C-alpha cells in the first residue's frame, strides 16, 4: 500500500547502496533465515549449540543486541562480566558472552570485523537529547526497539542493560576519550554466535542518524541460525 504521510521522514539507505546478503558464517542445516528491515527490531530463541550468523548487509550498520537465558530472563547478558572475565573491552573471535551471573550465554565462533563493541551502549530518545540536542527527541531509537520487542517476551525497562553493538566501532583512546567513530565493517561482513545454552536474542537494527554508527545510511540485517 502506498500512502502519503505527515510523519517526519524515517531514515533509510540510499537506493543505490550496495547490499550483500551473504550467507551463514559456519556450516550447518539452516533452521532460521530472516531479514530485519532498517530501523526495525528482531528477536528469536537460539537453541543450545546452534549458531546465529548476523550479516551486516549494507556495511557498518549497527546491530544493537541483548541476550537473555531463555528459561530465566533474570539471567541476561552482562557487558561488565564479559569484559572483566576476558580482561579486554573489545569483542573478538573467542570472546565468551557472559551473563550477570558470570556464566556463558554465547561465544563468538566467527567474526569478520577487527573488533566488535560492547561499551557504547544503545541510543535512546532521551540520551539523544543529551548527545545531539532536544530537536532529536522525536526520532526513533534502539531503546524504543528494545522496549517494544522485549515486551513481547515479558521484558521491560528493568531488563535493559549495557548491550552489544555488532559492526559498531567504539575506541578508547589513551586519555580515556571514548566515542563512536567510523566503522570497520562492510557489506556482507558477518559475526557468528554459538549458543552455550538456549538464548533469547533481541536485536535493534539501529535507526541512529546523528553519528557514524550506521554510516548515516540505515540498511537491513540478515539473521541466520544454523544447526551443526
Amino acid at each position, binding site marked *: 500500500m502506498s500512502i502519503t504521510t505527515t510523519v517526519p521522514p524515517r531514515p533509510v539507505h540510499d537506493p543505490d547502496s550496495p547490499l550483500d546478503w551473504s550467507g551463514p558464517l559456519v556450516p550447518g542445516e539452516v533452521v532460521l533465515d530472516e531479514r530485519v528491515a532498517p530501523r526495525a527490531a528482531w528477536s528469536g530463541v537460539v537453541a543450545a549449540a546452534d549458531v546465529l550468523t548476523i550479516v551486516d548487509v549494507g556495511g557498518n550498520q549497527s546491530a544493537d543486541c541483548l541476550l537473555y537465558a531463555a528459561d530465566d*530472563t*533474570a539471567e541476561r547478558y552482562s557487558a561488565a562480566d564479559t569484559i572483566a572475565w576476558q580482561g579486554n573491552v*573489545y569483542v573478538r573471535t573467542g570472546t565468551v558472552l557472559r551473563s*550477570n551471573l*558470570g556464566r556463558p550465554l554465547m561465544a563468538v565462533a566467527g567474526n569478520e570485523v577487527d573488533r566488535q563493541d560492547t561499551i557504547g*551502549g544503545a541510543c535512546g530518545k*532521551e540520551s539523544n537529547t543529551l548527545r545531539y540536542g532536544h530537536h532529536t527527541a522525536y526520532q526513533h531509537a534502539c531503546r524504543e526497539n528494545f522496549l517494544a520487542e522485549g515486551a513481547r517476551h515479558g521484558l*521491560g525497562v528493568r531488563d535493559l542493560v549495557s548491550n552489544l553493538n555488532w559492526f559498531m566501532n567504539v575506541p578508547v583512546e589513551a586519555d*580515556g576519550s571514548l566515542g563512536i567513530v567510523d566503522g570497520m565493517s562492510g557489506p556482507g561482513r558477518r559475526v557468528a554466535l554459538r549458543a552455550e545454552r538456549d538464548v533469547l536474542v533481541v536485536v535493534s537494527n539501529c535507526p541512529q542518524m546523528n553519528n557514524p554508527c550506521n554510516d548515516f545510511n540505515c540498511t537491513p540485517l540478515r539473521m541466520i541460525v544454523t544447526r551443526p
Partner: protein
Amino acid sequence: MTTGRLGAEGLANVGQARADARGRASVSDWMPYLPANTTPYPPDGVDPDTLTWAETVAPGGYTHLRVARGTRLRLEDVDGEACASVLVHNAAQPGERLNVADTQKIPWQAYLGAGHPLLSGDGRVLATIVADTSGRHDAFCGASSDAWNEAKYGDATAEGPSPSGHALLRLAAARHGLESRDLPPAVSFFKGVRVAADGALEWTGSAGPGRSVDLLAELPLVVLIANAPHPRDPRPDYVAGPLRVHAWRSRPTGLDDDVAAATPERERAYRNTIAYAGLAGL
C-alpha cells in the same frame, strides 16, 4: 530442662537472656553511628550537625541508602583496600538506574573523576562525582560475579569468606524491593583499570589510604554499595578494607554550576534532570 553452652549459670529464662543481650552493647570497627553527628570520623570541612548518615562498612560487607535530592555522600577508602561497587536508582521510579554505557559515552570519557556525571538510561543525571582524591576507578568491569569468586576464591556467598560484589548487591537491593534484574553493571571506586590500545585492561589498583570520592544526589536515590575486591585485582587472596560512608545535606547542581556548564552534553543532562524534578515535585 535445657542447658546451653553457658551451663548452670546460663540463660534458661527470658530475664537472664535479656540481661545477657543488653550486656553485649559495644562498638565494632564496622558499624553505623547514630545519630550521624556522633561519628568518630567527621569528614573534613563538614559541620557534623548537617550529617544525615555515618557508617563504616566491613570488608566484604555492603550498605544501602535512601537519600534525598541534594544529599552529598562521601565514600572514604580508609586503608587503601576498599573497593566500593556502586549502583544508583531513581527512588521515585527505580526502573531508572545507573547506565554505565551512557555514563562513559555521553561525556566522551571512559575514566571517572571529579565533575563526571553518573547518568541513567533516561537522559538524566542521577548523581555527580563532585570531588575525588583517588582517581583510581572503573566503569568497565562491574562488581564481581558469583561465578568469578567461586572460580577465584572457591566461594561467593555473602556469609562466606569471599562474598561476591553481586551477592552483596542482591542483598542490598532486596531491602528496597529490588531484584537481580534491577542490578545493571556497577561502577567501582578506589580500584582502577586503564584500557590499552588493543583493548586489554591494565590494573592501576589503589591510590592508597585515606582517599575519598564525593557523590551529589541529583534526584532522590536508592544507593547500593558493595565493598568487595575488584574482579581484576591480581592478588590471589581476598583483600578488602573498611569503607567509610558519610552523608550530609547539600543542594543539587544548578545550571550555573561549573559541572553543568562544562560541556553541551552535560548542560542538557542537568536541564533534563532539573525539569523532571520540578515537574514531579521532587
